[in-house]
């Protein structure tokens, strides 16, 4: 089912949580809402579910206006960060709940509900645990039950609110891969909220980056990572370094020296240069480069991260070097960013 969010605004007691947000979600797509806390990502998810009502704007499921429908009528599957399982019900009863509460002819017979529950238990790889209570399961198992419970009602959309947030790193990675598999197999349109960029980039078809109640950028992992369209996205996704620069005659200047980067289309005057610490070219001599004094050097996993002080203003930037690179021993390092972008001064 396609989901279209059209010009939605949401205020909580006059405080705006979302400003005029629009988003098109394609049928069968796996979408991540990514942002820091307070960015409005959970609010957007809850609006789609019908757990909140928009102050303005509409939400469409296909061609149907869902914004006037109650939560019960929307038929969405929602998975909560803290599972929200019914603790007095067994795993099988939890999963069958959504079918059992149906009325009249839409309610399948008991045997059918049982069959469907056991199918889903197999799908989420919890066979043999049907009779357990949630208290007898691990965190990862509980979240699987929650997902099976949400899928039992054949939802139009599957919505997951920080589904792996309460789990430890190992289980998280495992469940992430597993969720992707399940999605590929079942093809539900799925939206999940996360503040973990690695999770979003690895798992989602498209990532929606949000900040302060607005959508900053929507795109594939490659789009978002390689061509961030705002300083926020540059800073939020992956590592980034920035320097205040000046554009003169299509050339970028750092203080009183050109650094060898051409920016023919940039507007003249002050700007901020963004680049990735790992995407730099190290240079020997320095005519047309950025040079700085090494003030700190840290080993981070497979690379060495070096902090440099640049120019008289002592601007600090970070770059990454291969672990065994001789430049790490030197007191002065010269480099030029590979891929970079200019934004108006902060």
């Amino acid at each position, binding site marked *: 089912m396609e989901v279209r969010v059209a010009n939605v605004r949401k205020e909580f007691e006059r405080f705006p949580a979302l400003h005029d947000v629009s988003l098109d979600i394609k049928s069968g797509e796996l979408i991540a809402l990514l942002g820091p806390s307070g960015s409005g990502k959970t609010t957007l998810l809850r609006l789609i579910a019908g757990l909140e009502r928009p102050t303005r704007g509409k939400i469409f499921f296909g061609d149907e206006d869902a914004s006037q429908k109650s939560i019960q009528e929307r038929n969405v599957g929602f998975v909560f960060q803290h599972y929200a399982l019914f603790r007095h019900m067994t795993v099988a009863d939890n999963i069958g709940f959504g079918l059992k509460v149906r009325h009249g002819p839409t309610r399948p017979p008991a045997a059918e509900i049982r069959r469907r529950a056991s199918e889903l238990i197999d799908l989420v790889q919890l066979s043999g645990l049907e009779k357990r*209570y949630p208290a007898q399961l691990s965190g990862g198992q509980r979240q699987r039950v929650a997902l099976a419970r949400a899928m039992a009602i054949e939802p139009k959309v599957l919505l997951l609110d920080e589904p792996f947030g309460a789990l430890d790193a190992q289980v998280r990675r495992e469940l992430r891969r597993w969720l992707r598999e399940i999605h590929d197999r079942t093809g539900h349109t799925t939206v999940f909220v996360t503040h973990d960029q690695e999770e979003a980039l690895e798992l989602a078809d498209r990532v929606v980056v949000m900040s302060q109640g607005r959508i900053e950028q929507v795109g594939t992992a490659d789009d978002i990572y390689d061509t961030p369209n705002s300083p926020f996205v540059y800073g939020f996704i992956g590592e980034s370094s920035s320097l205040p620069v000046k554009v003169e005659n299509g050339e970028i200047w750092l203080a009183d020296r050109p650094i060898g980067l051409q920016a023919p289309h940039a507007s003249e005057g002050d700007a901020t240069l963004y680049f990735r610490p790992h995407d730099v070219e190290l240079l020997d001599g320095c005519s047309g480069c950025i040079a700085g004094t090494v003030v700190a050097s840290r080993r981070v996993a497979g690379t060495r991260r070096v902090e440099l002080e640049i120019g008289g203003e002592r601007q600090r930037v970070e770059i990454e070097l291969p672990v065994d690179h001789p430049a790490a021993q030197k007191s002065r390092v010269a480099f030029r960013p590979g891929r970079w972008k200019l934004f108006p001064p902060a």
Partner: protein
Amino acid sequence: MTTAPAQAGWRFRQPSVIPGFGLTLGFSLAYLTLIILIPLSGLIWRSAALGWTDFWAIATDRRTVNALQISFGTAFVAAAVNVVFGTLVAWVLVRYRFPGRRIVDAMVDLPFALPTAVAGIALTTLYAPNGWIGKLLMPLGIKVAYTPLGIVIALIFIGLPFVVRTVQPIMEEIDKEVEEAAATLGASRFQIITRVLFPGLAPAIITGFSLAFARGVGEYGSVIFIAGNLPYKSEIAPLLIVIRLEEYNYPAATAIAAIMLALSFLMLLIVNLVQTWSRKRYG
């Protein structure tokens, strides 16, 4: 080759790393012995002096049987009523924010603090045939004061806080997300309450019931004013004990007390077993 020793049938639960298990357990046992066990065994001791035939005669005396029926019957009905309305009061206090909520919240505890005789006299004044409420009920043919119904009303008053105060904290712990999850799955408001919320509260409600019931069985002060105390009709067992004491008939008094003790213990034991069972299930 050694094999693991067979597990003994009885074993202390593995004590935690926090020291003092032996000391605290010893103290608890000594304390309970001093405060509860010694007085109660004194009671049994005294009634045992009676001899089996006499004891049986007292136990099966119609006045005793009626008094016990009235005590346990009214306490049961009152506790059942309190379970329904006490849960409702707790619901209102937990779920809604309204002006004066704190005052209502404090009011729930008043039956704890008020001398029970005061409550009894106040209720009697209200429900007597010429009292404010009694006057209105009279034409309908309902007599409250000086009947078992009056006893039930007094016990409802006394028992309410027990239910509210045991259910309230558990209700506060209910995760809003659980209700939201049920709603997204298509459950109506009514289904959420009956299928999701209520089963989760059941253990607390059972505890509240047993506390209110136990309190009702033993209640004396408020009941004697409103009950009318007609032998065979509205005489409660604790009053009968006092009457026997005033007649210096100590063996009869202790015999009735021992029977009450046994019955109460049995009922609380059953409630506790139900609790253990439900706790095991819900973890």
